């Protein structure tokens, strides 16, 4: 059960920053609240009392997104459902619909923000691997002598351990800015124990751009989640593929490598085995999203022969 004395709903960024500047140790900042409420239950955090809750969901500056100069700026209150329903976002962030459809369920997606997902920095967070692959930067605001000051930090530096981020006391995530991936094919792989409300054991994201004739990898972006304390980008594999002719064998060869990255404390063998196939499947699905035909089982088997 969670209880609190005061519940504050700042209307704009300055008000929000002022409130969190004064936030006591036993205060809590929330956005969608879909993580904190389940945490305050028996078997997890138990009964928790907060002196003050600051709810960011009505901060004016945090609404919506902007697309300009090859970048997509996702303000802090963009929720996962937006990636499914918004045509613009689907075009510019082609891996995100596949990520979002695996995230919890429709109702939680209406509440849960991308910014909150990365702020909680769970090793199994679904939002982080795609952001890694899209060179995302996190924009952070704080008050310095009454002035709003901003700083920007790359997503890979921002999340640095299970539940650990570079967000300091008094700071808020304002936005996450990604590279626009318009023209890429995107995909997201995830496995848990069922097909809805899935807590990820392993996830993989791929973004692929092919040459005009569809024969060469022009760009490849890959990242994995759930395989260690933090999600990882697979730049070495990306480099192996970029500029190369697209062949099943090459994809299969490249996909074997990242199993070594599995650094989880549990289910290591399982994760290694899944990762191998997942990278391959992610690339294949992204190619299909680019317009390539789905490989047949025979082609897959031949590539592994």
């Amino acid at each position, binding site marked *: 059960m969670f209880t609190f004395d005061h519940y504050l709903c700042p209307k704009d960024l300055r008000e929000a920053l002022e409130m969190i500047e004064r936030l006591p140790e036993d205060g809590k900042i929330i956005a969608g609240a879909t993580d904190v409420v389940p945490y305050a239950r028996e078997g997890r955090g138990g009964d928790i009392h907060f002196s003050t809750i600051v709810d960011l969901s009505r901060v004016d500056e945090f609404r919506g997104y902007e697309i300009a100069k090859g970048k997509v700026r996702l303000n802090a209150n963009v929720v996962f459902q937006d990636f499914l329903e918004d045509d613009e976002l689907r075009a510019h962030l082609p891996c995100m619909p596949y990520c979002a459809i695996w995230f919890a369920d429709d109702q939680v997606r209406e509440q849960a923000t991308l910014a909150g997902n990365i702020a909680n920095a769970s090793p199994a967070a679904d939002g982080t691997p795609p952001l890694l692959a899209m060179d995302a930067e996190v924009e952070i605001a704080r008050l310095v002598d009454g002035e709003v000051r901003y700083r920007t930090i790359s997503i890979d530096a921002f999340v640095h351990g299970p539940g650990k981020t570079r967000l300091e006391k008094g700071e808020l995530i304002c936005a996450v800015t990604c590279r626009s991936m318009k023209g890429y094919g995107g995909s997201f792989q995830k496995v848990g124990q*069922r097909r809805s*409300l899935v807590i990820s054991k392993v996830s993989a994201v791929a973004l692929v751009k092919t040459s005009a004739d569809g024969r060469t990898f022009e760009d490849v972006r890959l990242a994995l989640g759930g395989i260690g304390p933090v999600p990882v980008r697979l730049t070495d594999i990306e480099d192996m593929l970029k500029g190369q002719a697209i062949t099943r064998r090459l994809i299969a060869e490249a996909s074997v490598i990242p199993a070594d990255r599995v650094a989880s404390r549990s289910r290591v063998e399982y994760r290694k085995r899944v990762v191998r196939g997942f990278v391959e499947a992610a690339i294949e699905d992204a190619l299909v999203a680019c317009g390539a035909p789905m490989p047949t089982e025979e082609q897959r088997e031949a590539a592994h022969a």
Partner: protein
Amino acid sequence: MARRARGRGMAASWYGIARTATIDRAGAWVEMDDGGTAKVVTGVTEIGEGILTVLAQIAAEELGVRPEDVTIGDNDTARSPEAAHAGATRQTYMIGNSVAIACRDARVKLDRELADHWQVDAGTIKAFDGEIWAEGTNKRMTVEEAIDLCKKRGVVPVGSGSFTAHGTGLDPVDGSGAPWQAYVFGCQVAEVEVDTLTGEVQVLGMWAVHDVGRAINPRGVEGQIEGGIVQGLGQALMEDYQLDKGHTTTHGFAKYILPTSLDIPQINTKLVEDRDPRSPLGAKGIGEPALVPTAPAIMNAIYDAIGVRITSLPATPEAILKALEEKEAAALQMTG
């Protein structure tokens, strides 16, 4: 091996109806009431299986009224006769039959008055759907009128019923005995797809054939079978209450994994109605037997698909991949 492999498996089952290895009993009271309605009183209520509707159907059929005319007074040890527990696949069999007996008892009183009024043999009186008539005559009225007539003659048409199922205890040494008087039989077939990359199993189809005795409400029976299969599927593939030295590690539904709408096979059901010869209705039951063959049918289907035999439930993705790896290692040893 192809990434996605499919296969099929089957399993058969049997089950006993009502309490085990003992005498089971249940009671009910019935009153044919004003306005052509009826009250049925018995000491147990709905746990979701549809028993109230089944009892209303039985009362409607026996009394000649419509199910919606039946009011069920249930669930209260101080106001209703003993019906004992809601379990053991005994509701339709035990309480259904006691309600049928109680209804027949009430009808004897109503029909006696009506026979006298019409000057016909009580055995010729039939009733259905709110109408009552003497066969072979043009004598006919509504059940409402019949009840009114009966009461004006000074008789309230009430009845009571008690139904017994005769089970015997087991011998303590060799276990011999007759634990039930009615048995049901079933068979289910599963069709699965195994993702050999992730170990995930999807059940794409289930075929369920169950002997339920006479089906009172076939759609309700299907609902029981579908629910039973999905519970069986949950146990087969994902559900696992875990303890670490007596402390649970699966506190809530985030850790205790249940099947969702996306994990459900197409379920195809066919009923075999082998009537019970020892009870007025001929019905038997389905609540529990529905899930007995599900898990082995799924495990047999997984074996058909990928050649690994899961003998320890649940067959999680991790368990499947581990078994596949062991199979591959064994195959390598054979060739190497």
